[in-house]
């Protein structure tokens, strides 16, 4: 009997947990007064790019790559097919901010102010408890990285990309901008020109890491850009879970985050990438994320998108070998005044490949949540399958959501399906629950948990808590009398 209701009991427990959790916005919207040790100043040109390359003492190929990427960036127009990007102040953005010369493998060596910031965000504590390794990036540079010895002994490499470029130049060169070339889009080109930091994770053949590895990105300066470049290589038969968290304080002037994430899941490998972004409402978040998935490999994208002013993000999987699979889960919250233009791309390039995409969005007030997807089944991707599910929840009496799926099917034996649901929680729905005795808090928690029910296991608990908190604030307004 009790087994039958275990799910309800679990729900009751979750509701309690949510009630007792009180993560506050101040917890991450603070900013410290740490002054960068070096900065290229505002604006972008050849000199700035050369300066970045000089500071980093990079190999010549990288310097040439940067300059080429800059040309591509300059030649591409700002995309106009999506959200309004006119608020990006290209001239007055600071493209490179170096916090300190220290990049340490010991927390003690990190400058105090920066250490305090990461302490407040709970980063070192997480590392001790749950992680196999971690990297911390502050503005443009990694300031700390560590990897448990067992994994190091097995040949795992985990550090910021700049360090990796120095210590494992050939390995980096093999993968750098292969999945995401600078020509891909304007923001990828920008990243190519001014990239700094990000993580490099290499898991050798057959090594299965059971604990996740994490990078925490913190943007501190006002009107700065963060352009990290992350590469995850899961070699044949390996298994890895990589997590990213990001926050920034809120400023009046807009900041730009334009990252590249490249994931290589080789034959029989299993790679999982989880990212939770809670950028403040002054950040334009424009990353390009892509995975190459080889024969019988499995790629999982899990994304939680809470913050930012505008986010455009469509993690893509190129299913390159037979029986490659990708799962893509994205949960986004479009708060008042913000736009989440998110989705997924699955490109089936080999037979028997499969993709499953779940996109869940919550829009509140005039927050706009858009699903934009691409599904391509190439000729020859025989018996490939795809399923796309988009669930939208509108919290308000008059908010909206949009779905733009795009299918290109060139293979007759391929099968695919789309499902979409839209639910609305307005004053009437909230009042209905409250009229039975539920508090506003409980009502909103139940709605959020209910909406996330089928994916709850996949997403980090802190994410659910923070999402719930933001939604509660909003529902408070809906329930206000007269």
């Amino acid at each position, binding site marked *: 009997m009790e087994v039958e209701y275990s799910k309800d009991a679990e729900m*009751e427990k979750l509701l309690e947990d949510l009630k007792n959790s009180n993560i506050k916005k101040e917890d991450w919207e603070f900013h410290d007064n740490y002054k960068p040790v070096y900065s290229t100043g505002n604006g972008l040109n050849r000199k700035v790019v050369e300066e970045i390359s000089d500071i980093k003492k990079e190999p010549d190929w990288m310097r040439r790559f940067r300059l080429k990427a800059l040309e591509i960036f300059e030649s591409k127009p700002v995309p106009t097919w999506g959200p309004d990007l006119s608020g990006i102040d290209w001239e007055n953005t600071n493209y490179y901010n170096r916090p300190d010369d220290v990049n340490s493998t010991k927390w003690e060596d990190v400058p105090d102010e920066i250490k305090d910031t990461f302490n407040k965000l709970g980063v070192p504590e997480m590392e001790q408890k749950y992680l196999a390794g971690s990297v911390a990036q502050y503005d443009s540079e990694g300031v700390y990285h560590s990897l448990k010895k067992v994994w190091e002994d097995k040949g795992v490499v985990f550090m910021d990309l700049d360090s990796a470029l120095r210590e494992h130049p050939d390995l980096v060169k093999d993968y750098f901008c292969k999945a995401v070339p600078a020509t891909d889009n304007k923001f990828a080109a920008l990243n190519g020109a001014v990239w700094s930091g990000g993580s490099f994770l290499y898991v050798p053949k057959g090594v299965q890491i059971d604990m996740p590895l994490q990078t925490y990105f913190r943007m501190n300066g006002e009107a700065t850009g963060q352009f990290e470049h992350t590469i995850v290589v899961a070699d044949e038969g390996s298994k890895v879970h990589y997590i990213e968290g990001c926050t920034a304080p809120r400023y009046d002037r807009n900041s730009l985050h334009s990252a590249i994430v490249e994931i290589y899941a080789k034959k029989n490998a299993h790679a999982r990438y989880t990212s939770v972004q809670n950028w403040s409402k002054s950040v334009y978040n424009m990353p390009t994320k892509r995975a190459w998935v080889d024969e019988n490999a499995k790629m999982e994208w899990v994304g939680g998108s809470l913050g930012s002013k505008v986010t455009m993000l469509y993690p893509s999987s190129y299913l390159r070998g037979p029986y490659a699979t990708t799962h893509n889960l994205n949960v986004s919250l479009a708060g008042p005044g913000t736009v989440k233009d998110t989705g997924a791309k699955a490109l089936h390039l080999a037979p028997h490949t499969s993709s499953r995409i779940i996109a869940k969005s919550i829009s509140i007030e005039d927050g706009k949540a858009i699903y934009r997807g691409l599904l391509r089944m190439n000729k020859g991707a025989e018996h490939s399958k795809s399923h796309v599910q988009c669930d939208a929840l509108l919290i308000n009496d008059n908010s909206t959501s949009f779905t733009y799926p795009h299918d290109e099917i060139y293979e007759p034996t391929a099968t695919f399906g789309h499902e979409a649901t839209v639910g609305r929680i307005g004053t*009437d729905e909230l*009042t209905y*629950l409250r009229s039975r005795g539920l*508090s506003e808090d*409980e009502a909103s928690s139940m709605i959020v948990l*209910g909406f996330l029910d089928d994916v709850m296991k996949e997403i980090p608990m802190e994410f659910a808590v923070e999402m719930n908190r933001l939604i509660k604030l909003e529902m408070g307004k809906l329930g206000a009398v007269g």
Partner: protein
Amino acid sequence: MPELKIKDLRASVEDKEILKGVNLTVRGGEMHALMGPNGAGKSTLGNVLIGHPNYKITGGSIVLDGINLTDKTPEERARAGLFLAFQSPVAVVGVKLSTFLRTAYRQTHPEDKVTLTEFYDRMKVHMKKVGLDESFMSRSVNDGFSGGERKRFEILQMVMLRPKIIVLDEIDSGLDVDALKLVADEIRDYYSDDVGFLIITHYQRILKNIEPQFVHVLKDGKIAVDGDNNLSLRIEEEGYDWIKN
């Protein structure tokens, strides 16, 4: 014995006055019927009683057992023992019926430490009585329910949450003949000296089944006539034209 006192209640929606001074008292052991033409303000009264934020109370008071509920939130009113079965219950996507009822029960009866299993067993008994299949327990509240299923669920909530003063807004509309009988049976079973009913309806059908002692007619935002069940018979035959404001 509970007592709900509605005194000179005035309320407006979007600055339009709908209730223009309603006076009504409902006590435990009493069965009241509220009739009246479309748009008279019957549902408005129900919504105002439970504190729907879209309705603004501009005068008068709502008092339950000596406690003034006029400025209370919907949840406070529910916990005080007030219940409205909505005329058109809304769907709440994602909120599972069983968890919802359980949470509501814990809020309205914090003293009762009933376990999850006991509570659900109780729920299943009543689901059977109102004719809702057990599979509804795991569905979202009212989501995809037929009109009749929504009404049955309202009654299920009533018997599970055990309120003291109950407003049923057109509980009989949308129900088939058999369902109407089931619902009337549940109402009669639940009826006692400890609960008072205000049944909003347009039809004789349900009133034959539950025989209210008091019948009121709401017209243009006010109670225009009071009477006994004979009044409902006359309305069935003659309509509302003979009633003056």
